[in-house]
């Protein structure tokens, strides 16, 4: 750094004409522009990419809701099961509850526990063999059809799989208060 003789600059006035200096400076400006642009591009694209990318689409989470053997046949039963939810770097254990009606060893119906009217938790009334919602008195049949009350659509059934004698449920929520089943 101290070596004044080994200077890097080429600007001695006797080195060339005004014309040459102008050409050189034109070139330097182009070079600065190109290099700065490339630096910006090579870092800018990744950084912007980091921000616009959305997290990998969540695969449907199948939760083990229990052994098929433990379910009574033809009788709705409330099944609770734990699942881990993942939101970026937050992992939480949540407890879900669904209604399950077992028809045979490999056929069940799984209902979301949420009333499609306004989101209350409905119950099974054993005496009248109907699902009834305590909030606004909607009544549903065993297969989920609306028999009475303000509910705009039948009970929401959830996808399920049976493997190795265990029931797997994919928990989902749907928009309430509308006649169509819209996943939220």
């Amino acid at each position: 750094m101290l070596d004044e003789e080994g200077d890097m600059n080429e600007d001695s006035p006797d080195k060339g004409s005004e014309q040459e200096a102008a050409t050189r400076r034109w070139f330097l400006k182009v070079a600065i522009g190109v290099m700065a642009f490339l630096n910006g591009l090579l870092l800018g694209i990744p950084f912007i990419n980091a921000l616009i990318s959305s997290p990998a689409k969540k695969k449907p989470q199948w939760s083990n809701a229990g052994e098929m053997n433990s379910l009574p046949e033809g009788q709705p039963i409330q099944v609770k099961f734990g699942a881990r939810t993942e939101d970026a770097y937050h992992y939480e254990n949540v407890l879900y509850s669904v209604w399950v009606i077992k028809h045979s060893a490999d056929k069940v119906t799984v209902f979301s526990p949420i009333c499609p009217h306004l989101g209350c938790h409905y119950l099974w009334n054993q005496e009248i063999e109907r699902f009834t919602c305590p909030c606004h008195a909607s009544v549903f049949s065993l297969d989920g059809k609306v028999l009475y009350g303000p509910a705009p659509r039948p009970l929401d059934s959830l996808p399920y799989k049976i493997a190795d004698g265990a029931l797997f449920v994919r928990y989902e929520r749907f928009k309430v208060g509308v006649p169509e089943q819209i996943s939220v």
Partner: protein
Amino acid sequence: MLRKIEDWVNERWPLPDVVHLALDEEIIGGARIAYTLGSAVLIVFTLQALSGIVQLFFYVPTTDHAYDSISYLRTKVPFGWLAHCLHYWGAQVMVILVLLHITRVFLWGAYKKPRELTWLAGVTLLLITMGFSFTGSPLHWDQRGFWIGEVSTSVAATVPLVGDFIKHLMRGGEEMGQLTLSRLFVMHTAVLPVTLIALFGIHIIAMRRFGSVGPWDEKRRLQKGLFWPDQTFKDTLVGTTIVVALIALAVFLPPRYTGPADPLDISYIPKPEWNFLFLYESLKYFHGRLEPVGTVGVPTVLILILVLLPFIDRNSERNPLKRPVAVTGALILAGIIVAMSIKGYLSPGFAQPPVSPKPAASQERSVPRGYGMNMPFTGISEASPAPPESAARTSSPPSAETNPQDATDKGLPGQAAIIIGGAERGDPLFQKNCSPCHGPSGRSVLPNPGSAEGKVPSLNPIDRDNYSPDAHVFAEKIDRYIQHGSVPAGSHPVITMPAFGDTNTLTQPEIANIEAYILRLNGVDRGQVIHPGIEPQRFFLLVVVSFGLVALLLAGLWNKRQSRTG
């Protein structure tokens, strides 16, 4: 049209003056590589600001999630690894460049009248840079950063009279905790950046007022260069070289995971960042009542020397060869600082074996981070689209709430399984807790009479059922054994695996570190990048090829111009 817009703006805002201030300067003696250091600092600071902002979109300054949010950024956000690793290396390089810049200015005698204010603003900028370095590392809330924060705030407490107050102010309380992290975070991302930009303004305006000082040799001063584009070109060249070097460092030497902050892990011997090592070393020479001499005296004297330099050294001579006292003094001081830094670097630190056995496990152990309590996931469900095999085997009991004891034979993965541990930290923990049965490096295993296999299972290589090339899956598999223990198949196995997690024998961060180590034994990197955007090494290749092509293009352009004029 463009002209019109320009005129419109010019009538209302002094654009030409600002451009003039930024670019128009005659460089006495011509442009030089030596003069690029200041611009290089500015370029790296800009890079720090940008990569810092990218990180802010993902990072949270909370003790329970800071570490995981960085892990997430580095492994699951496209180019998150680039933002984080560039920021890490940029921080190191920025300190080096500031020091080189200040050395250059000193040798050129550029602090002398009338440039004292430029110098003073520069000294303050140096201190702010050190402040960035100081407040930055604890933000990760990993083992390394936590202990740096712990010790350096304790150092502040040795200041006579007001020490406790300062420590309290820095920590936001007595203990390192959430309020400390919040404070460091606000300093690092709000207070220091704003201060730095303000002082940079003072620095650059003062610098432009008198221009760069130029060579001390009168003959060489006759040459003239221009800041724009002569010096700017060299600045761009150097800046580009630094950017490419930083990308190379980020790609080939990413900072290691040291595991989440764990105040209970007393085997960890903290050391400061390299740029504070000389202070760390100097503390060793002052004991008892003299301690403040090391903690306060030494830094104060150093700062005073820098601040007072232009007022003490008022001789107008700038040639370093004709300033024997100043230059010799600086050389001695720099020599002492370098020697003490090296000594501090070599003194036993990270690599030292545990100093004393850990306290006996007890239920009362708790970690501020929230990992201290062993909280195995109840009713876990695998995130797998096809449940039959994986989920059915590893998944939960029918109803975890009503039947927690029935959690399959091994139970569920604990908190540690989602933490990216540090293999280096896991190594000593493994040797202490696991190698008695599994052997050093998990290889030479003990016989286990009464078990079906007849010996303790090897961990290196681990049996195929428990292996996965996916670090997260792999960690979850082995985590269940470490958390809940295991009884090997067989009539009466003599040795059974203890439940390190359930009994709180090991904290969750410790288990995470051991898992990272076991994964490494099996050739799996716990911190493997899952969504890199572009694979790091391929990205580096892309950068090199891009700049290579541009260099060729520019060379071609230059030749064409030359032949036309010549």
